[in-house]
């Protein structure tokens, strides 16, 4: 081998290339992962002595659109902001990311807002956008409000990418959305659905999942300014989606996953003991799962509350369950919503109209109650198909606000986003 290359311009060029690698190495020190920020729940003395509280209302108000995949966050004034997607059907080009604000004093939701459209996303990302999907909203500890949502440029949901936008004025104005880069394969096949968690240094921990070739879950580390700075794998293979992550302490967290396989139809669980860097192999736990999304939150007594369709098939019953941190003991708390038929069989339109009318009145809250007649005259393919009319309660999203209240939002027959709130006193009463 000739060492003549180390002469003249070649020597300079070689030294230049060596310098590039050395400087690049020096510029990228190893990143330390900070522990989970465990939210301090401040329950005022007056609130602590409050009696049991359980209330429901609709967050959405549009009567015509298919609505789905809701998410909610609490705001510093005690209010809430919820987001969901709405359009003529799931995956349609007219789907928008919409939201609404909850006034804590009036205990009601305001008018719907449009937060992102296919066109606004296309303009911002300078990519062709076919459709929008799941949105997730979360308030960071620095009071920056984050909105993550899915968009697709090519193909179906397997071609998804995650967009991020933020607001520094609690949702009055928003930054231009930009696409997170999360995979080396054309940056496709990453979706978001579940609540992010935060780390002590402000890093956002975003549970995500993949649907291209495999179906598996990951945990993204996103810097406080919105750049993906790391990731870890929660599961592998083809049978798990939509991880809901609940920190137990600074280093430990549990993830529960939607089971998308064909064998046991049980919720999967995985654990981390190093703030999300590594996760244990997912294992099936007691509750059933019909390949549907679930949501969990930590309780005051170091347990977890989980909202899920604990069925092997169908989504006709949404149940709230309590479990301990080892996920071994499970106790039903309440059926949040369910079909009157214990097997979830469809109803005739006439029978369905009567039942869902009653359910509407029990669920809507005073402000949306006036919509009931128009809703009942417009029952369409969202709930009634050739075989009859179905009840579907799905895609729960769970948070606990700083004042100790639990808030749950979910799809109510894909016609409304329902909001349920309750307190510890009510929870104690149920257990």
């Amino acid at each position, binding site marked *: 081998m000739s060492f003549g*290359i180390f002469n003249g311009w070649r020597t300079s060029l070689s030294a230049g290339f060596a310098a590039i690698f050395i400087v690049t*190495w020096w510029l990228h020190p190893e*990143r330390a992962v900070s522990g989970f920020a465990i939210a301090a729940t401040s329950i005022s003395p007056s609130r602590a002595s409050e009696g049991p509280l359980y209330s429901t209302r609709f967050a959405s108000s549009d009567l015509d659109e298919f609505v789905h995949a809701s998410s909610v966050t609490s705001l510093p004034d005690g209010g809430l902001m919820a987001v969901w997607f709405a359009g003529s059907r799931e995956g349609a080009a007219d789907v928008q990311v919409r939201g609404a604000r909850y006034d804590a004093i009036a205990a009601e939701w305001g008018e719907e807002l449009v937060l992102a459209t296919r066109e606004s996303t296309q303009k911002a990302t300078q*990519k062709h956008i076919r459709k929008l999907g799941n949105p997730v909203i979360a308030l960071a500890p620095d009071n920056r409000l984050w909105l993550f949502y899915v968009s697709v440029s*090519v193909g179906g949901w397997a071609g998804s990418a995650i967009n991020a936008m933020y607001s520094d004025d609690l949702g009055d104005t928003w930054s231009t959305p930009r696409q997170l880069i999360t995979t*080396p394969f054309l*940056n496709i096949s990453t979706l978001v659905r579940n609540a992010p968690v935060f780390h002590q240094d402000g890093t956002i921990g975003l549970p995500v999942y993949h649907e*291209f070739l495999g179906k598996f879950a990951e945990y993204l580390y996103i810097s406080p300014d919105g750049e993906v*700075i790391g990731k870890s794998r929660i599961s592998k293979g083809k049978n798990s989606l939509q991880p809901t992550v609940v920190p137990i302490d600074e280093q430990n967290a549990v993830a529960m996953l939607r089971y998308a396989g064909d064998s046991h139809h049980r919720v999967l669980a995985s654990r981390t003991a190093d703030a999300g860097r590594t996760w244990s192999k997912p294992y099936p736990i007691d509750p059933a799962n019909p390949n549907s999304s679930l949501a969990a939150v930590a309780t005051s007594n170091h347990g977890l509350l989980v909202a899920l369709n604990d069925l092997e098939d169908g989504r006709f019953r949404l149940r709230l369950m309590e479990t301990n941190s080892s996920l071994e003991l499970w106790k039903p708390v309440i059926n949040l919503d369910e079909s009157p038929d214990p097997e979830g069989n469809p109803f005739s339109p006439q029978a369905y109209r009567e039942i869902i009318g009653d359910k509407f009145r029990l669920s809507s809250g005073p402000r949306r109650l006036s919509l009931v007649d128009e809703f009942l005259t417009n029952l369409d393919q969202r709930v009634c198909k050739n075989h009859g009319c179905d009840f579907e309660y799905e895609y729960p999203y769970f948070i606990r606000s700083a004042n100790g209240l639990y808030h749950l939002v979910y799809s109510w027959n894909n016609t409304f986003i329902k909001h349920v709130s309750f307190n510890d006193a009510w929870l104690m009463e149920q257990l």
Partner: protein
Amino acid sequence: MLGLWQAHLTFALLAFVVLPGFGFGRLAQGLRLLLLLAVSFVSVDGLSLAAYMRSFTDDVAITTLVALAFFAAVRMGLLDAPKRNVRVQLLIVMAALALFLYPATMGLSYLDPYQLGYDPRPLIVTVGVLAFGLLLLKNWLGVSMLGLATLAFSLGLKPSPNYWDYLLDPFIALFSCGALIGYAFRVVARRPTKASQEQELNQPTSL
């Protein structure tokens, strides 16, 4: 538009390399490249043609961009086409990186090599060693591809903070693996088999 510099450059270089050159001279080829660059800015429904291409391809790796620029220069007669051994060495390096990255990153294992691109020191050392090896082999195309990709990473020229996105994309990965398999088939096909050697020996000579 500046944010899409890479998309426009990729569009122009790819079209220049793929479309026939019609035997034009060097100056005409240069004008053709400029024309293709101008075409990349043509807007349809608010998006440029380069942006449409990027919607499907995402931002390609810097290695791909350097390779496209190199082959465009070859086409313009500015550089010589790389020799076969140079091509094979480069294909081996890129295919090895691709086989390390892609299968595992698609969910086949709990190990995700893409994470190495976020905490990239071990990967920088590995790629540096590969580049040094190519340097010893006088494979300047390979050294330029890996070196310029690393330089672009340190300057943050792409939106991605992940080193892998500067080194590899599915196109260069598939091309490298496919071309390497093609080379292997050709080598095997050309190698005389024992039967054909015996047949050759038994052939009557024309003398």
